[in-house]
């Protein structure tokens, strides 16, 4: 089963931890997982933020992470600021995720 998650809140929100634990559980259960970060959610994979280590761990375990390049640029977050392996993407990728997912969850404010 493919689980896809849209995360739109910044690292200080409890959503980040919930999403990390959900994706971990999905991967451990043999499922595939994809994350799309939008709005303040893009800060979760900025290397300066401590929580980004945990998102890097998810990618190591097989999760795919993409972010909305438009909202990242508006926040001054460039591709070089983000974890390597994070796809600097657009709404097209989100549309594809929505279509491909067996289950799509949104974690917003």
């Amino acid at each position, binding site marked *: 089963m493919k689980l896809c998650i849209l995360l739109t809140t910044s690292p200080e929100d409890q959503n980040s931890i919930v999403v990390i*634990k959900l994706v971990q559980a999905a991967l451990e259960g043999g499922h595939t997982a994809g994350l799309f970060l939008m*709005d303040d959610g893009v800060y979760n994979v900025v290397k300066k933020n401590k929580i980004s280590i945990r998102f890097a761990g998810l990618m190591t375990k097989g999760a795919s992470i993409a972010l909305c390049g438009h909202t990242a640029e508006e926040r001054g977050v460039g591709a070089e600021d983000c974890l390597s392996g994070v796809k600097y993407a657009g709404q097209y990728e989100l549309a594809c995720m*929505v279509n491909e997912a067996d289950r799509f969850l949104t974690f917003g404010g």
Partner: protein
Amino acid sequence: MGDNGKFRIVDFGLRIERGDRMKNVAIIIRALPFNTIRNSEALRCAVGLTIEEENKIKVLFIDDGVFSAASLSCPAAQERDLPKHVETLKMMEVELIAEEEALVSRKLKISREEITIKPRQVINEMISSADVVIPF
């Protein structure tokens, strides 16, 4: 929540047949539009989701989100890019729906033909029947 504070995913209870990729997507705009571009971002997201032509998108203005729908009739209150996104969504035949009760309680009127007004009960049914719900 399972042992050791970890989440355990048992069953999502949803199976989609191969080839049946059409998704009913409900985008919910529920917050005030003031001092934020969040609602405009929601509409941009809706525009993006139309790229996959199989998706059936609905944009639902509920609660304080109806201020965004109403602002389309008032140029001074318009958010950035809001009218542009609405025009695009209209071209893509996306349904834009505002909650009747929320409009009445806030004494708002919508004169734009792109936005239809429906009662809360109908909107609730749309949300519960959607495959994907994206609240903003």
